[in-house]
């Protein structure tokens, strides 16, 4: 890990690491806000479809697309965690130890985010959208 990276590669690597850390929870945020607001506002208005699209389908999209985002972030975080794991001598390069910690945090954050999205999807499977 001592070779110098080009500025472009360093920027891209940094962005990828932040995606690995926060991609899952951003996906979950999109899921929670989209699925909840679609369900609540549509039901409140007395409709069972959204712009001609069945409400159940819209909620399914609000589950599946964020789930795909969380899976992608999980994959990137696993890669980052494995790549930085090999370079952790005591007192070694500070940035490697820090990146390893962030990748580890991202790995488990993404797992938790994916679990929340899946549980929301399960709720969408067993409950009809406007049941009160």
């Amino acid at each position, binding site marked *: 890990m001592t070779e110098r990276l080009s500025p472009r590669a360093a920027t891209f690597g940094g962005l990828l690491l932040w995606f690995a850390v926060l991609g899952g929870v951003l996906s979950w945020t999109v899921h*929670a806000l989209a699925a909840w607001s679609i369900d609540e506002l549509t039901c409140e208005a007395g409709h069972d479809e959204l712009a001609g699209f069945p409400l159940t389908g819209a909620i399914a999209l609000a589950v599946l697309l964020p789930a795909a985002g969380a899976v992608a972030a999980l994959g990137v975080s696993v890669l980052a965690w494995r790549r930085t794991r090999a370079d952790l001598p005591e007192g070694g390069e500070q940035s490697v130890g820090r990146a390893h*910690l962030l990748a*580890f945090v991202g790995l488990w*954050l993404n797992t*938790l985010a994916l679990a929340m999205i899946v*549980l929301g999807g399960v709720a969408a499977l067993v409950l009809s959208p406007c049941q009160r």
Partner: protein
Amino acid sequence: MPSSTTERGAGPGTEVVERLTAEWAEPPTLRGWFSTVDHKRIGRRYLVTAAVFFGFAGFSALAMRTQLAGPEAEILSPGEYNQLFSMHGTAMIFLFSTPMLFGFGNFLVPLMVGARDMAFPRLNAFGYWVFLFAGLFMWASVPAGAAPNGGWFAYVPLTDERHTPGLHLDVYTLGLLFLGISTSAGAINFIVTSLKLRAPGMSLNRVPVFVWAIVATSFMVIFALPVLNLDNALLFLDRRFDTRFFDTDRGGNVLLWQHLFWIFGHPDVYIIVMPALGIVSAVLPVFCRRGIVAYPLIVLSVVAIAIISFGVWVHHMFATGLPQLSYGFFSAASTIITIPSGLQIFAWLATMLLGRIVVRVPFLFVVGFIVTFVIGGFTGVMFALTAFDQQTTDSYFVVAHFHYVLFGGAVFPILAAIYYWLPKISGRMYSERLGRYAFWLIFVGMNLTFFPMHVSGLLGMPRRVYTYPGGLGWDPWNLLATVGAYVLGLGLLLVAVGVVHALRRGAPAPDDPWGGDSLEWATSSPPKPYNFPVLPRVHSLHPVWDPRTAESTGPGATEDRILTDGRQTLFTSELDGRYERAVRMPEETLKPLVAAIGLLTVFVGLLFAWYWVAAAGGALFAGTLAGWLWPAHRTPEEAGVPA
């Protein structure tokens, strides 16, 4: 584990120390008292002021428990009871817990990261004065009989002008808006301090858990508080200027209040508990004579809780008739958030299991915290299940739950912190015997007060009732709770006696009485105005136990970490703590105090509808701010312009 200054490195000579003292010491005058920007003095003031507000709120609780000791009591009128329970909750949440923990943060964060002050010392002083004035603004309403009376979450339509006339809810909305300025300023300061002022070498994987917790809390404040401010501003506009945000007859929506309040309110539970968890992670390992187990998992837990806590607010609204599927999304998050919380508990248990335990008073309070917080967490998981929540909502079971979470999760760690850091803050040791008596009284009193509330709640006793009829099976549980409250009060009084005793008669404290691992133990007790004669270079997660960090403050220390030319500290990079440059820090000034007085005038003017007074206060505030921010004359070198 080096524990004395000699072992940690001799440090610079007397000439350097004298120059640093000349630059950083503040004059011991009355003006100096009002104009201080020293984070340690401000931190101590936060602690004392929050403790006084805690005392007020505690006496309110004792009055309420006395009223509820038996059925049909007439010690308090319904109106008085409503004001007392509203102020009790509001003060414990807003005027005690967060300011107390921010007080510890103020004192400790710069020391723990190896800096000489907070990033914005004047903003720090301003935050304290605003907190003090906002607290006085709200508490002054109690003797005037105009205190908030709609509960700490002030649901509309109960709190609109038609149902609650008078100043009560105006005090609430304006008081919290006023206080929010202080909390936001403090949060910004913590974030910048922790990201930019860390000692060289302190990369993110070497940051103490307490600092992680304070930073996460600060980010939560930044995202959550604007929502509460918006909610309070809308309610004030509805009440004062007849707008219609919450008026259903005119197109408003009462659930809007609840959504906005709990988007703030649930993260706020963690805003209160998170720094307390950080305290536990700082105190526990020291008394287990080893480093914390699973540091990366604890960091994960802190970050995860800070984020997920924003997606669980609807579990406070499970009885409002929203679609079941909506509940499902929030129930999922409410269940998953228990995982990171549980991770910390297991990490602490593992630390105890693998360590060599030394039982001292701070450790006892940490153990008390674990027991009570786990019980509160357990009933919390029950509330994540919609069906159970709907059965027990608005009952005393809820009161029992959140007191286990908040007293267990915040007050026990705060008490541990008081005993743990008192030697560092005051330079004096406390009496171990008094501390142990206090712990047992508090532990027994707390459980005796709040455990019976689970039973009375399950038996159907609603919360927020000023009295109740006899013969419903609630009488013995209420009596037990009242006895417990007095035992608890006695224990807390003993803590206060112990602190005063330590300040007056305590033995002088060594620099590191516990063998701690974080940087605050690497300096004198109490710390000098400049904190560290040499800013350390950090080589590990446990800098005080690490000889390389100790050597970095020894005779070979370079001038770029001594910085005697004016008030200076170091900027380092956000992620890896790489040395960037020295920065100048501001000197003491009265401007923060004057600006806070300007704001106080604004809010008093708004409360009494004296708008010209509010405008005058606004002008004073704006003028002071302009003077504060006016660029000082500096040479190009001082301004950082390259030659």
